[in-house]
């Protein structure tokens, strides 16, 4: 991601007209943004918030138009930080510059609620254009809006657009250009209104008396807005079906939201998604990792001139870190694609509805499902996604539970350990860890609600607009996946590679006499000593080994480095070097270690290791975001609680497992 903490104007070229895309959630606004801007996009935070805005450039002939994709909102009367940002930007309040044109994306299948937002945007005084999407969905539900009548009744230009195919985009461009050209005749009626000036328009014409070309209603009260909405809707859809037409989405929902089938289907979808990432990702991860640790490392060791420590630093430190980062790319890409399919297909909203009851038991409502599901993709954006929740206390509660969702970085450890110790049922073991992750979220939420969150009431309604189901589009999904993976490589990649270099340096520094830098037995290095000091704490979990301790310690920075740190430890330890080169399998090295640390109960120790990795602090980036959103006290407290829970669970699993195996 780029340009975080910048104001929108900072990312749009000077003199470039700013076009804001405003609309209800799932109205097709972001799809339209992607279609218009192509790959010319960046992500930024609204000033002083963690609410993300996407900016891009729309090239029309020789002209460049700046695009800002605002958070989806039902109203400019905000009830969440995201809605606040959308409302402020459209009206040009605070540090945000008013856009030159607001394109209000109207969901053709949900015109009533879309028109309410249109009415409010018109009141801001920003030049307005309406782009109607989802006409195919509306048609499947027996509704065909008359767009000419809609434009005449609403007194705003209206164009039909299909963001998924690009149909109507040229017409949208012409309409935007026309509005920009006519902008000189606009006024700041909204400013007059906020200043207490009177503004009476009952026929759509602006009554400011300045001859401006403002259009749309000047409605002051909710009741007036609703009346205007009903009037415009009646003009656009004069003969709606007396009863709703059952659409394909309705037929699918009959199964997917069924009282008895909904939850099993939801669980099956989750299981299929992660089985896919496990089965398909493993050989890809192995292939990338093997390339870096095998032929490339061997060639570089021979090709780099100078003393041995130079090639050691570059190959065992830097290259190992880079290889570790890049080996995650196929895994993360698969997870992001899987989540994209859920989102783009329209199922994610259903998942929130299905999960509502379970989340209410822990003081949350179904809307918390979105950040929690995103947490399974990455905890950091999940922390950001909590900002969409309107209630601060529930937002905090969700933010404290997000680290318990198992992100793909942890999956690399699961795959290694499950593939080694449970080769015949690795997929089931990994799935079981995801189920355990869900259980921890529920139990953690319940515990918090019984202690620090007793004030939470269970009265907040869950009302979700259900988007129609769509076949996910491959191209924008791949584009989005690329953006997210690149952001991971740029952001977390530096931390990961840097951490592994530090680990190598610590391992190269002797702490006893008689050794040279980069030529020291591991146990005599600073790295080995730190790990030796930590290892006894893990003894009750059957994990009393310096390599395990060091991997878990470096994993505090980012879970992605756990496997890399383990591999580096084994390749660095002279006692293990022969065996490592003989079979080349990290898993076998790990089995040997755990057999020794657990008195022969390696399987129980492996499970304890997996549970510890699942439950303890996900990464520094998540902690940093947690601190930024909720403050230092909550972030530090959360880290302490997570480490305690992880240790207790690991000890419990090992002690029970030892009795059973």
């Amino acid at each position: 991601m780029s340009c975080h903490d910048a104001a929108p104007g900072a990312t749009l070229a000077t003199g470039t007209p700013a076009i804001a895309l405003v609309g209800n959630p799932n109205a097709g606004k972001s799809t339209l943004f992607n279609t218009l801007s192509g790959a010319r996009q960046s992500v930024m935070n609204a000033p002083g918030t963690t609410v993300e805005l996407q900016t891009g450039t729309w090239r029309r002939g020789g002209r460049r138009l700046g695009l800002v994709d605002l958070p989806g909102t039902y109203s400019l009367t905000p009830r969440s930080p995201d809605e606040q940002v959308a409302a402020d930007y459209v009206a040009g309040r605070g540090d945000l510059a008013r856009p030159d044109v607001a394109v209000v994306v109207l969901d053709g299948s949900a015109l009533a609620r879309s028109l309410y937002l249109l009415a409010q945007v018109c009141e801001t005084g920003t030049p307005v254009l309406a782009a109607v999407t989802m006409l195919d969905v509306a048609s499947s539900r027996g509704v065909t809006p008359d767009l000419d009548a809609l434009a005449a009744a609403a007194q705003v230009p209206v164009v039909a657009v299909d963001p998924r195919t690009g149909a109507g985009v040229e017409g949208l461009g012409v309409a935007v250009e026309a509005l920009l050209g006519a902008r000189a005749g606009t006024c700041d009626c909204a400013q007059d209104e906020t200043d207490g000036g009177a503004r009476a328009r009952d026929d759509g014409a602006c009554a400011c008396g300045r001859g401006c070309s403002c259009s749309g209603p000047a409605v002051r009260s909710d009741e007036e807005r609703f009346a205007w909405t009903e009037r415009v809707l009646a003009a656009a859809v004069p003969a709606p079906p007396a009863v709703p037409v059952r659409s394909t989405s309705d037929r699918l929902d009959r199964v997917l939201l069924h009282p008895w089938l909904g939850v099993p289907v939801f669980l099956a979808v989750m299981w299929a998604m992660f089985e896919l990432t496990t089965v398909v990702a493993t050989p890809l991860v192995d292939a990338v990792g093997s390339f870096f640790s095998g032929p490339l490392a061997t060639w570089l060791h021979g090709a780099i001139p100078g003393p041995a420590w130079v090639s050691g630093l570059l190959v065992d430190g830097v290259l190992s870190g880079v290889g570790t980062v890049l080996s995650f790319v196929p895994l993360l890409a698969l997870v992001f694609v899987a989540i994209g399919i859920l989102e783009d297909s329209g199922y994610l909203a259903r998942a929130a509805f299905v999960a509502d009851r379970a989340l209410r038991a822990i003081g949350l409502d179904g809307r918390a499902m979105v950040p929690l599901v995103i947490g399974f993709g990455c905890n950091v954006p999940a922390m950001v996604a909590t900002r969409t929740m309107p209630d601060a206390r529930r937002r905090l509660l969700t933010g404290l539970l997000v680290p318990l969702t198992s992100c793909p970085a942890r999956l690399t450890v699961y795959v290694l350990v499950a593939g080694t110790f449970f080769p015949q049922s690795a997929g089931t073991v990994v799935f079981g860890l995801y189920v355990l992750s869900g259980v921890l979220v529920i139990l953690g939420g319940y515990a918090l609600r019984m202690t620090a969150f007793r004030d939470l009431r269970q009265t907040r309604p869950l009302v979700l607009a259900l988007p129609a189901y769509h076949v996910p589009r491959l191209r924008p999904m791949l584009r989005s996946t690329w953006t997210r993976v690149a952001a991971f490589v740029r952001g977390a990649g530096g931390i990961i590679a840097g951490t592994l270099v530090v680990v190598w340096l610590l391992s190269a520094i002797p702490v006893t006499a008689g050794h040279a830098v980069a030529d020291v037995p591991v146990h005599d290095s600073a790295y080995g000593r730190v790990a030796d000091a930590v290892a006894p704490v893990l003894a009750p979990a059957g994990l009393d080994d310096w390599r395990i301790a060091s991997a878990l310690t470096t994993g505090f920075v980012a879970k992605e480095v756990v496997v890399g740190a383990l591999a580096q430890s084994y390749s660095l330890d002279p006692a293990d070097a022969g065996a490592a080169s003989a079979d080349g399998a990290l898993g076998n090295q790990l089995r040997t270690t755990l057999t020794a640390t657990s008195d022969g109960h390696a399987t129980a120790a492996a499970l304890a290791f997996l549970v510890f990795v699942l439950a303890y602090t996900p990464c520094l980036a998540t902690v940093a975001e947690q601190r930024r959103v909720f403050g230092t006290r909550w972030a530090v407290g959360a880290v302490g609680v997570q480490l305690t829970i992880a240790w207790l669970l690991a000890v419990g699993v090992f002690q029970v497992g030892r009795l059973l195996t």
Partner: protein
Amino acid sequence: MDLRLCPAGTSVEVSWVELDDAERARLRELGLREGAVVHVVHCSAFGGRVIAVGSDRLAIDGRTCACIGVTPLAAALA
């Protein structure tokens, strides 16, 4: 009666909404206003309902459905 008691396929008119002002306002923005005619499309777990407001579809949890009073109009779904 309240919305939670309505079977799938029925058309109802919203009579009253017993929620606090902010939540009631959000429901009104979404089209669930007193006097609005809505249709129950699906019954979901724990009293939840999927309703049609025009061609729009809204999923509402059971607890909220219990706060929405309705008057049945018909039992039909095309």
